[in-house]
């Protein structure tokens, strides 16, 4: 499916572009982080420690003034029958135990970012795959059959496009509710990760399931399939005029077979480029839904940004860190998308983000 010429173009572009290599490194790191979360995460993402809340990230310290009971020689000072209080400045220093600090409940932010990558990447991959499946089926049929089929399918695509994707996504998740499927984490249930963790001296007790946000995946696919339909249709329109498609038809190949064996493989390049950009767009969409509290996810970058808002005057890092994780991931995906587009030059359009 990927020709020698294509591979050569990809390699040439990769040698030429530092940014493309950077993008690949970022994406590979993020995926690795998500997959191997139970091995590398310093703590469980839900492990609370209220005595240790709002610890600043490495390189920072916080100064807070607190009203505390005045003590002299180890006893409480009482004047006029009342306990005397005094303002004391409390410094909190960063510790290596929590390199990115802790949140309002004393949970380790680095661990939450590592586990949050799972949510983002699951939704990004599954959402994009489902959107591509729907969109490619619709688009190929529209372009292949043209005429009335094309009219009906593409007008329904226009109807979907009339809704801003975020607004439609909010409405759909809002009316559907949030179905989630906990799937067992194979690394934890087989005991590999716990064994590894106790061997290297990391705390155990990692979550045994990965939560698959089912509704969110379906919804992001439902609002984003249109872009795939448009690209697939455009490709099918031109490919159907090619000699080899006519030959396949003349030889008696069924429509389904012609589309899947002859049209689709030749339309795959622009679809792949679009898919890369769409993973980024869908990760942004998921984070927006989580930020608004509609996704139901409790370990998600967008959700943690929202959680941090109540500490915006005392602990800036709680909202800042997960946002940086989103930005880095999306930049990485966009760089990979640019690389594929420059190398393969399919000339497509597509929506970028939230």
């Amino acid at each position, binding site marked *: 499916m990927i020709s020698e010429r294509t591979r050569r173009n990809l390699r040439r572009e990769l040698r030429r572009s530092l940014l493309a290599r950077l993008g690949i490194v970022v994406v590979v790191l993020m995926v690795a982080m998500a997959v191997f979360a139970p091995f590398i995460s310093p703590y469980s993402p839900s492990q609370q420690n209220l005595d240790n809340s709002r610890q600043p990230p490495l390189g920072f310290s916080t100064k807070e003034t607190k009203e505390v009971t005045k003590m002299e020689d180890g006893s409480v000072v009482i004047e006029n029958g009342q306990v005397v209080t005094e303002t004391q400045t409390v410094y909190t220093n960063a510790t290596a135990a929590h390199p990115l600090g802790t949140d309002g409940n004393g949970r380790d932010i680095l661990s939450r970012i590592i586990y949050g990558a799972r949510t983002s990447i699951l939704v990004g991959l599954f959402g994009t795959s489902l959107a591509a499946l729907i969109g490619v089926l619709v688009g190929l049929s529209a372009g292949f059959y043209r005429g009335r089929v094309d009219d009906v399918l593409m007008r329904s695509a226009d109807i979907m496009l*009339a809704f801003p994707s975020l607004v439609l996504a*909010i409405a759909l998740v809002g009316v559907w509710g949030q179905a989630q499927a906990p799937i067992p984490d194979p690394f934890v249930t087989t005991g590999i990760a716990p064994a590894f963790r106790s061997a290297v001296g990391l705390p155990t007790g990692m979550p045994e399931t990965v939560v698959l946000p089912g509704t969110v995946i379906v919804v992001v696919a439902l609002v984003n399939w249109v872009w795939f339909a448009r690209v697939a249709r455009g490709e099918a329109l031109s490919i159907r005029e090619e000699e080899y498609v006519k030959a396949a038809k003349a030889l008696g190949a069924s429509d389904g077979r012609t589309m899947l064996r002859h049209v689709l493989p030749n339309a795959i390049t622009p679809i792949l480029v679009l898919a890369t950009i769409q993973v980024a767009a869908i990760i942004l969409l998921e984070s927006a839904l989580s*930020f608004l509290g509609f996704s139901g996810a409790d370990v998600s970058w967008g959700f943690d940004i929202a959680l941090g808002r109540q500490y*915006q005057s005392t602990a800036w890092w709680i*909202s800042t860190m997960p946002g940086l994780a989103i*930005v880095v991931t999306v930049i990485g995906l966009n760089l990979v998308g640019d690389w594929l587009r420059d190398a393969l030059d399919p000339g497509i359009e597509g929506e970028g*983000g*939230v």
Partner: protein
Amino acid sequence: MSLSRFLIKRSLQGLLVIWGVITVVFGLRFISPGDPANVLLPPDVDPEVRAQVIAELGLNEPLYVQYWQFISGIPFGDLGLSLVTRTPVAARVVAKLPATLELAIAATIVAVVIAIPLGVLSATRRHEPADYGATVFSLVGISTPNFWLGVMLILVLAVQLNLFPTSQRPIGLDGIAMLLAGGDVGAAVDGFVTWLWHITLPAITLGTYFTALITRLTRSGMLDQLGRTYVRASRAKGLPETLVRYKHALRNTLIPVITVIGLQLGTLIGGAVITEAVFAWPGLGTLIINSINARDWPVLQGSLIIVAVGFVLVNILVDALYAYVNPQVAYD
């Protein structure tokens, strides 16, 4: 095909899409697991009262009757009644429109004013620091979730440095217009300053993605135009470089840029929803989110219809504009 025929055809297509939009929005209620009557009634209500409420809401009518009731009022601006407040939905949506529109317009102004010069600068100084700066800016701008940007702006500029308010919209352009109409110019100027002060952070939040996007488009469009034969011919003819760049190349670049701005309007409204949530901006987005949380379906449905119909109309307008400035376009 002539321009007028093109417009008629395009408008008919638009009507068809609007009908589809209304139908999809109507169907939304039926995929929802909850019963609208439950929003109004306590769970332990007397079944007779319940049946009466369901009858009043028309929920026991056959589907086609409900559909007709839903759709027939819309051309006359009747979007039904809110389940919660029992007031007309249309009035509530219209009351929230100015806040969202002024946010969207302010963001577009921010985007256009920054992005087009930046894109031109980037294209004309290719491979110079200015170009790299603009490229990095647009990459980061496209990749940054706007709600996080809003939270960061609040964190730094409002909470830490106290330069801007964290939220709210004490006065809108509609209120300022009212003051002007009342002849109170002083208060109107004060109001405008307050408005500007409050809308700055939300407008930057909403506008950054578009600034980045339009910078990218302007840059690549401009590079494409500058490489064309007519540019070389004009230069060879001895036209001043400024004229070649800013009159000819830029003008041809702007046509697709304007189309994209129109097409991205949906994203802009989507972005406005979340920007409003960050800044407690009392617009359509806040209304949509509140109506979902309150399970107030008619308000949600009405807002969706207004947003989608607005989007369709703007797109027809953009197409017409496009056809007008570029008569060679093959009317599809």
